[in-house]
């Protein structure tokens, strides 16, 4: 028995060391995105015109788009608007904000609903026009469109204190394929 007790901490210690080494490789620091290339466009995060929010950090955006926040600071319930899977705007949000793949994102929401922690269920829309219309009509909505698709019906918010046209803005998207 004493021999077993002596081996156990060594065994556990070795295991923890192995895990820590493996885990260290997974802890990649957040690398700010490169400035957009000439062909890239910016992705604008849009909210309803009545929403007093002006700026969100990347961490706050991530919490919002993962359904981990259910209410705006003014008490209004958040309604999350996503574009359909396969759309480049959605791919950019999953990659740059959520840092997840499509299947990870689905699993995250399924798990969140299962645990009861996620109160927000995303709406899925197919076109930027649909996103704009929805955000215009729903005071608690937040969505995203290309900066070139923005019009006066929605409000563009700053991300880390920067608007899409400003230098250092982090959300970029490949250009829309020409037909």
């Amino acid at each position: 028995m004493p021999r077993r007790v002596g081996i156990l901490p060594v065994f556990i210690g070795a295991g923890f060391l192995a895990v820590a080494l493996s885990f260290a490789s997974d802890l990649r620091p957040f690398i700010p995105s490169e400035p957009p290339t000439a062909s890239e466009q910016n992705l604008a995060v849009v909210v309803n015109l009545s929403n007093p929010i002006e700026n969100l950090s990347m961490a706050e955006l991530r919490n919002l788009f993962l359904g981990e926040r259910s209410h705006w600071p003014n008490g209004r319930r958040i309604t999350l608007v996503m574009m359909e899977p396969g759309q480049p705007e959605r791919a950019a949000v999953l990659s740059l904000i959520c840092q997840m793949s499509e299947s990870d994102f689905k699993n995250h929401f399924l798990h969140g609903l299962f645990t009861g922690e996620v109160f927000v269920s995303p709406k899925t829309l197919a076109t930027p026009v649909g996103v704009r219309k929805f955000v215009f009509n729903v005071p608690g909505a937040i969505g995203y469109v290309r900066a070139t698709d923005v019009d006066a019906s929605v409000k563009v918010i700053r991300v880390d204190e920067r608007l899409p046209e400003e230098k250092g803005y982090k959300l970029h998207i490949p250009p829309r394929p020409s037909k």
Partner: protein
Amino acid sequence: MKVSTLPPSRVLPAPGLTGWRVRRRILPLLLASLVTATILQAQQPKPGDVTALDKQTLQLLLQRIDQLESRVRQLEAERQPAAVVSPAPGPTQKSAPPVNEAEQQAESQAESAVPERMDLSKTLLRLRGFGDITLHGDTRKGNTTAFTLGQLNLFVTSDISEKFKFLSEIVFEGGPDNIYGVTRGEINTFSVDVERYLVQYSYNDYLNVGAGRFHTAIGYYNTAYHHSTWFQTTTARPFLFQFEDRGGILPIHTVGVSAFGLIPSGRLGLHYVAEVGNGRASRSPLTQEPVQNVVDDQNHKAFNLALFARPEAIRGLQVGFSVYRDLLAPINSPRIGETILAAHAVFVRPRFEWLNEALVVRHAIFGTSQVFNTPGFYTQFSRQLGSYRPYFRYQYINASGTEPVFPDVRLRQGPSVGLRYDASESVALKLQYDYTDSRARAARNALALQVGFTF
């Protein structure tokens, strides 16, 4: 689901007009049209008449457009009585924000206004299923290799209103006596357990309140995986978090009220959970229903308080502790004060998982100085490599042989290694080997092959 009320536009042939008959009747008409067109071409008006004719035609067309527009408006009004706020282009929109009081109405209007396909998040009832089937065998004397039906879990949620939500887990399960759903009864009887039954109110991110039957927020595992083996990396829960009706030592379920939410703490991401409930019945006799669903055997209520942090700096890290307090009243024994202290540090990312939990169950017998401390811990590590996820778990629990509530548990410890293969987004195959060293019994080697799925 929205169903169009407009009839499908189809051209139906008149009765009797089929096949060669149709061709025979249409052919003369085509010939007549051709002749008429030729005659009309020959009778083209003089240039002076063209202007008058064009003006007349234009006037008629404009009248027709007006008639059609008014008809469209009428039809739209009939189909959608509440007019949708539609964004008109131009900067003047900023002076006409939507009416805030009618958010719910605006949301539903927006949904009907947008022609794209929507998800079903506004559906009143949502159903998701989880299940597993296992082939299991071990070296313990008397045990046989068997196919085992795992828990068939129907997870039902409903957005009752903007602030209220309902969720439940309805589980069909086989008991240890080969009975499906109950621990006593006839062989192969099917039955059902309502494992979670919870109505939740969300005031804001800082205050959410739930009432009903829920999983106690002791540690991490219990509220992270609930009754779904598909969500779990491994084939089964750790000893520490085994369900009550499977010999588990913790009050996994309770019936009562729960409050949870964020604590304003900036980048530290502090959360709280506070629970009050009936607690569990004493485990003697073992066949008794351990969760006090309807009647509490005493007025004293169980309390649980949990605090945990999810710091922004390290995404996926959660560190926390919980304190649970209850009073047990076993039959023919003095009352027992129960305190459960639990701590956890977990790091979970889509490709990586490292779970560490430790706890102590303390039982103090009233009227004596006897105190029984049962420590336990587990550590679990896994990493996703493509569709494969190899994992390792070591678990330990050490209860005294004279422990008043679970004398049968005693010392159990050992490693588990396994491989999970995600055959699709919804189906996982798992192969797991367990070695369990036990003070009460001989060491056990076990092998399990499981298919876990969601549907």
